[in-house]
């Protein structure tokens, strides 16, 4: 009986759905996190009678055909890269991107990773680093004795050193954009790597056409909406239950068939 296997595909799909939703909820307070959504597609159809097939020599056509589906599969899990809300932190090295773009981060392996989590700080040499201590690219060093750091919306970093009255420019932050940023390869720790699906990075200054602006003293909260995630969770649980009902029904029918007296 096909129904048993069909219901199993439905249960497996909803299980994946719950996993994706629970990851979204777990990362509700992760800076720069983008929520994900599972894509479901129907499986192949077994065609018992082709729709539009001729049923006689006179050109009569079968109006509907008989096609029986084999269930559902998870096509992909895609990332919804909508803007998260800005949270004011007041920290001079907390940066949020308003619009398109990613900060570039140098991994210890020498590779470049990309992130929207701008909760940066400085290391012992005054360089701007991520929460994990990875260097933000291009490397910007804040001189010793700096009293005040200002980062403009276009990414210019200015520092007021010692007793100076005017700030001096110490660096320029750049952002990277991608044709398809939903295709970036997630690495954990809020980091992404370039992939064949994302396309190559285009680097430019914040505020240029197609690039977002940088807001100092803010972090970008995750774009997870708890209410819609909880609603999705309820839908997924009910769908799982309904598929298990199909299993019960198919089981009862098989039991009826095998208990037929002969």
């Amino acid at each position, binding site marked *: 009986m*096909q*129904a048993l296997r*069909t*219901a199993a*595909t*439905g249960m497996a*799909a909803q299980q994946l759905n719950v996993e994706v939703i629970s990851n979204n909820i777990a990362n509700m307070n992760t800076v720069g996190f983008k929520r994900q959504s599972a*894509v479901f*597609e*129907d*499986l*192949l*159809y077994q065609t*018992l009678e082709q*729709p*539009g097939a001729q049923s006689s020599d006179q050109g009569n*056509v079968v*109006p*509907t*055909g*008989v*096609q*029986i*589906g*084999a*269930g*559902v599969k998870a096509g*992909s899990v*895609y990332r*919804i890269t*909508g803007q998260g809300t800005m949270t004011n932190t007041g920290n001079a090295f907390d940066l949020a991107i308003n*619009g398109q773009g990613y900060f570039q981060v140098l991994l210890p392996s020498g590779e470049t990773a990309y992130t929207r989590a701008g909760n940066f700080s400085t290391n012992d040499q005054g360089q701007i680093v991520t929460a994990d201590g990875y260097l933000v690219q291009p490397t910007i060093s804040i001189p010793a004795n700096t009293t005040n750091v200002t980062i403009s919306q276009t990414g210019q970093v200015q520092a007021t050193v010692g007793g100076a009255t005017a700030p001096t420019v110490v660096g320029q932050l750049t952002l990277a*954009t991608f*044709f*398809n940023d939903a*295709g970036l390869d997630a690495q954990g720790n809020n980091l992404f790597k370039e992939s*064949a*699906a*994302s*396309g*190559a990075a*285009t680097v430019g200054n914040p505020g240029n*056409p*197609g690039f977002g602006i940088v807001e100092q003293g803010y972090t970008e909260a995750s774009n997870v909406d708890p209410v819609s995630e909880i609603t999705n969770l309820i*839908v997924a649980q*009910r*769908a799982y239950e*309904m*598929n298990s*009902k*199909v299993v019960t*029904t*198919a089981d*009862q*029918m098989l039991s*009826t*068939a095998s208990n*037929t*007296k*002969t």
Partner: protein
Amino acid sequence: MDNAIYVGLSRQIILERELDIAANNLANVDTAGFKFEEMINNADPTSTPAPGGGAPTPVTFVADGGVARNFTQGSLIQTGAMLDVAIDGRGFFQINTANGPRYTRDGRFKTDPSGKIVNQDGDSVAGSGGDIVLDPKKGIATISPNGVISQNGETVGKLSVVDFDSLSALSKVGANQYENASNLTPQTSTTAQMRQGMLETSNVEPVRQITRLIEINRAYDAISTMMDTTAQLSSSAVQRLGAVNPT
């Protein structure tokens, strides 16, 4: 007398098929753009000649007439993704796959590394003037209700939405897509409205499907009882007729 068992069997085979269809509907309760299906049953009348040349006994078997697809609109939900597009009204997006054009109401699109609008499997989404390519430097794309895509006020392309005279003649091929297997002429849809940032959910009504499950289960049970009764009838007939006449 055996006919009763065979008529019951023909109904049970169809009931199993109906259960398969209800199971597929329920498995796709969360599949974007999915349209639920139901079995159409036909009566298949035949007759058997009565022994001894009397009037023939009418016997009606149950046969499958086809699978009807219910194309009512699924409800629209907001996703907020820029390239999620729902169709409100009749029509399908055209996807150009390696196996020819396919039609779908699942509008979860994305861009490929070159900026072309593609579906989740990477096949290009047809525009009325060919592929639609976005320029990421121009920022957010806006999709108007008639399908025109613009970036920064400039028109980039127009989503092609087609409709067919007979929707049931389309053949399902999986992956939320339909194939135009009967070579109908696609027409440009005039009534469809595009909704950006939204998705059309499956139109499966869970209550209806669960009710179908119960119906199917009970009908199967009832026929099984009928077949048992018929079998008992013939076995008791054999016993009585075969009994040695007591002296």
